[in-house]
C-alpha cells in the first residue's frame, strides 16, 4: 500500500473533471489519476499509489524500482493484476 509503483505516462485525458492518465508499468498499462501532479506531461515517469500519481520521478529511478518490485514479487499485488510470467 505504501510502496508505490513507478510507471510512464503514455496518455493524458480528462474524465469527470479529473485529470487522468494511462500509465505503462513495464508492459502492464493502467489508468491513474493525475490530479495531484498537475505539471505531468506525456513521457514523464511517476510514482503511483493506489491509482493516484503523487510525484514525478526520473526515468532511471522508475526503471530501477520497477525491476525491484518485480524481483520481490509485489508488482502484481501493488497493481491488482496477475502478471504473466511472474515467478
Amino acid at each position, binding site marked *: *500500500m*505504501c*510502496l*508505490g509503483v513507478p510507471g510512464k505516462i503514455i496518455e493524458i485525458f480528462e474524465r*469527470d*473533471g*479529473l485529470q487522468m492518465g494511462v500509465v505503462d508499468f513495464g508492459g502492464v498499462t*493502467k489508468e*491513474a*489519476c493525475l*490530479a*495531484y501532479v*498537475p505539471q505531468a506531461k506525456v513521457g514523464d515517469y511517476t*510514482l503511483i*499509489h*493506489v*491509482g*493516484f500519481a*503523487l*510525484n514525478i*520521478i*526520473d526515468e*532511471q*529511478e522508475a*526503471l*530501477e*524500482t520497477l*525491476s*525491484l518490485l518485480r524481483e*520481490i514479487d*509485489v508488482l502484481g*499485488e501493488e*497493481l*491488482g*493484476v496477475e502478471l504473466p510470467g511472474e515467478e
Partner: protein
Amino acid sequence: MKYLTEYRDAEKVAVLLEEIRSTVTRPWVIMEICGGQTHSIIRHGFDRLLPPELELVHGPGCPVCVTPLELIDRALAIAAQPNVIFTSFGDMLRVPGSEKDLFQVKSEGGDVRVVYSPLDCLKLARENPDKEVVFFAVGFETTAPANAMAVQQARRQGIQNFSMLVSHVRVPPAIDALLSSPDNRIQAFLAAGHVCTVMGTWEYQPLVEKFHVPIVVTGFEPVDLARGILRTVRQLEAGRAEIENAYERLVIPTGNVAAQAVINEVFEPCDRQWRGVGFIPQSGWRLRPEYAEFDAEVRFAVGDIEVEESPLCQAGLVLQGRLKPNQCPAFGKQCTPRTPLGAPMVSSEGACAAYYQFGRLEAEAIEA
C-alpha cells in the same frame, strides 16, 4: 531485464556500511516505522550487516495490522449484507476478525471485491445502482489522497450508493505515543519515505523538539536504507536531534500540497484505536461532518460488536517494537501465513510475514 542500479549498487551499500561502522561508538536503538522498510531490511539481511551496537526495531507502519478489530468486525458484518458490494485493497481480505475474515464472508456468498483504486468503486456504484458499494478505506498518509478524492468525486458526480468505512491512521501521533511510553527504548526514527512524499517533513519538527530524537526520512532500497541509517547514527553520535531528509529525490519539505488540501477538505483528525497498540489521541482521520452521508458507519447500523483477539497472538508487542516476530511462542507454529493469528502475519507490510517469508524462523542471539 535487470537494471543495474545506483540505488541498489552493492559497492555503494558496502561503502555506506563501512562508514556506519566507523561512526558508531556505542549502542543505539533505531525504529523503522514503515512495514515496507521492514520487509526490505529483512529480505536483504540488512540488520545482520550492521555493527552489533545498532539495533533496528520494527514499527507499527503496517496499515492492515493496526486497523482495529472492531472495524474489521464491522466490515465483515456490512460485507455479509445481501445488497452490498464490499470493496477493499487486496491485503485486507485475509486479516482475521474475531471469528472470520473477508475471504470467508465471500465464500459464504458475500459480494466482496478487491479494487486497485478507490475510484474503481465509483464506477462499480454507477454500474450497480440497485446495490450499496462500500469501500474499506484503510491506510496511512499514502492512501489518504486517493480515498479523499474518491469521496469528493462521489459528491461531485451525485453518486448516492457509495460509502466508506474509514480507518485512516497517521504516523506523527504514533511516534509521539511510542516515545511517551514509560518503557520506550527508541532513540531515533527512520521516517517512512512515501508518507513524507505526501505530507512533507514539517509535521515531524515538533516531535524532534519535544523528545530530542533524530528523525530521518528514508527510502526503501538498500542504498536508501544505508543512507538513512548513516545520517541517523551521525546525529545520535553528535548528540544532535533534527529532522533530516535522506530521500531528497522523492520528498520535499512541503510534501504534495494539492493532496494535503483534498485530505483536509474531506477528512479531519480523530482519536483512533490501533490494533495491538492501543488508543492514540488524534492519530486517525475520519470523514468531516460535511461528508457524513458517505460514512458507512452511519449508513449501516451494525450495532455493538463484541471483539475477541486470539489469546496466543503477540502482535501488539511486535507492532511496538518490543518483541521480534520470531520471539513469539506461536510464530511459525500455530501462526503461519496460511493460518494467521494476527494481521502482521498476513500483510505484505507485516513484520511477522517478513520474518516467515525470509526464513527468520528462530530467534537469534544477536537480536536478544
